[in-house]
Structure formats: structure tokens, C-alpha cells
């Protein structure tokens, strides 16, 4: 099992098993958008950062740890 640590800023870290979110259709690798879905967020409302930089949501997950920033606009 490949585990990715998803740190949603302001929340506790979540451990996500890639095989579980792949939908049982290997060898397709889940994308960062799938990772967001696993923590109940969508690419519209959040961005995935790897080492402080955003990664395209349609790219296969390669990192072992990601940070998720929610996009908020209120002022």
C-alpha cells in the first residue's frame, strides 16, 4: 500500500491510501484531484502544494506528503 500524508492547512493530517482511491483499477495512478476528493475537497476550492509549490490537479500523485490550501476570499 502506498500512503500519502495529506496536510490540510488548519486541520489534522490525513493518511490516504492510494490504492483505495484508485477505485480498484490498477495500474492507473490516482491524480492530485483524486487526493483532494479523498479529503472531501475539489480543485475549485483548494490547491495541492508539494514543497510549497502547486502541482497540476490532473497529474498522477508522486509525492509522499502534500499540503492542501483552501482558497478563501472573504474580507
Amino acid at each position, binding site marked *: 500500500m502506498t500512503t500519502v500524508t495529506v496536510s490540510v*492547512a*488548519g*486541520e489534522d493530517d490525513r493518511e490516504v491510501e492510494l490504492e483505495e482511491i484508485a477505485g480498484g483499477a490498477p495500474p492507473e495512478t490516482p491524480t492530485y484531484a483524486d487526493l483532494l476528493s479523498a479529503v472531501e475537497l*475539489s480543485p*475549485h*476550492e483548494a*490547491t495541492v*502544494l508539494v*514543497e*510549497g*509549490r*502547486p502541482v497540476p490537479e490532473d497529474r498522477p500523485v508522486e509525492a509522499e506528503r502534500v*499540503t492542501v*490550501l*483552501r*482558497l*478563501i*476570499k*472573504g*474580507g
Partner: protein
Amino acid sequence: MTDLALDATGLERYARHVIMDEVGPEGQKRLLDGHVVVVGAGGLGSPVVQYLAAAGVGRIGIIDDDRVERSNLQRQVIHGEGDLGRPKVESAAERVADLNPDIRVDAHETRLTAETAPDLLAGADVVVDASDNFATRYLCNDFCALEGIPLSHGAIYRFEGQATTFENDGEGPCYRCLFPDAPEPGTVPNCATTGVLGVLPGTVGTIQATEAVKYLLGVGDLLDGRLLTYDAMGLSFETVEIARNPACPVCGEDPEIESIRDVSYEGRCTVPAD
């Protein structure tokens, strides 16, 4: 003290600044010579404007095209019951005059647009984004990134706040490094539909004012390269490291945006296709 050119009233007003080594008379002079533009006179703008004025930031621009409504008063503490229906910039300017008559206020009852931004933001030492919509946020970012003006960013949602500072010195990230395009309209909820804890913008806006004052003083460590998140429910803060994005459309290696005129500040705030 004579270099500060303050009269007795001024010395008394800023005494708690002047006695600190990190501020002193020179630092107070830097604040009095400082020019900060605050975009938005709502929840975030209320504490920002008041703390900058009280600190003695000599020139404060305030931009907002809204008028005060009763539903604002739960969090927009620069306005009061007697201001209902008045332009927010007028109410805010009046409060500044009462707080500190040393301050010059440039009150602009208008919306920040690509057409008005050069006149309203150019020349500022720091811009504080206290707006409540993506069009203004992306415009502030793009103008400040292109012109090299430090930008304090703050945003709030329900019980959650974010703040960071983009120094725009060619080294750190900008807002588009994190969020290259705005989300599709309607996909991110706003405070009007989801609510917001009234005291939340006080906390986040005060952090923004702190960053602006520190920048003018040239002391401390700014939130450049770090994004601070605040969870009011758990009363916890977290700092996320953020880095410059080589693919950023405004400050990356091959930027698509070279002028704010290139961008359509509606929808996803992108460069329109030819």
C-alpha cells in the same frame, strides 16, 4: 528627538513606540513618512485602517465602493449605527481623523479596476488586500507583483483565516504562485451565504496591520514565503511554507501576464484567448 520633528503632542502620542529600541524616533519617522493603501474598508479593512492610523502611518489610502449596511456592523468595527447608508470610505476616513489628526487619508469611493489601479496603488510603500472578491484579489496581486510593491494578503471564511505577505522583491512567491487562476465563479462560498464569526476579521486584519507596520519599520520577520492559517474554533495557528512557482503566470520564468491590461478581471481572472 529633534530629528523626529514632533511637537509635544506627537511625542506624547507616540511615546510607547519611541521608547522601544526597535522603533525609536527614527522608526516613528518612517511610519509618519509611510504610505499604505488599504483595499477594502470592511471586516479586514476595519482593524487595518484603525491600527495603521493609531500607529502614525502618515498617509493611508482607502478604496471601497460599498455603503454601510446594518449586516456589516457585526464585524466591520470602523463603522457604526450612525453610518448606515454612508460610503464606507467616508465613515472610515472620519474615524481616522478622530483617532489621529496627523494622518492624511485618501478616500476613494470606487472599485479597484485595471483602469483605476495605477492611479490608486502606484507609489504606495505597502498595499493591504482587505477585499472580499477574487477579481480584486487577483488585480491587487498582479499590479503589486509587476510593480514590486509589497502586498499583505488576508482572507476569512466562517471560523478560518489566512494571512501572508508577498514582498514582491523578485525572490518570494506571489498569490498566483499558489493559485494561478481564480476558481469558476460560484464555486467558492462567500461570507454572505455561509456566515463569518464577527471577531475573525479583527484577528486576521490585525496581523495584516502588524505586517505593514513591521515592513515600514524594517524590523522582524515578515510572512514572506509563509502562509499563516488561523482556526478560531480550535484557537490554533499554523504556518505553511510557500515557494515561488517557476510556472507562475505573473512572476514565473516565462510570465503570460506582463501588464494588468492583459488580464480580464472577471471569471477566472486569466488572459483572454486571442
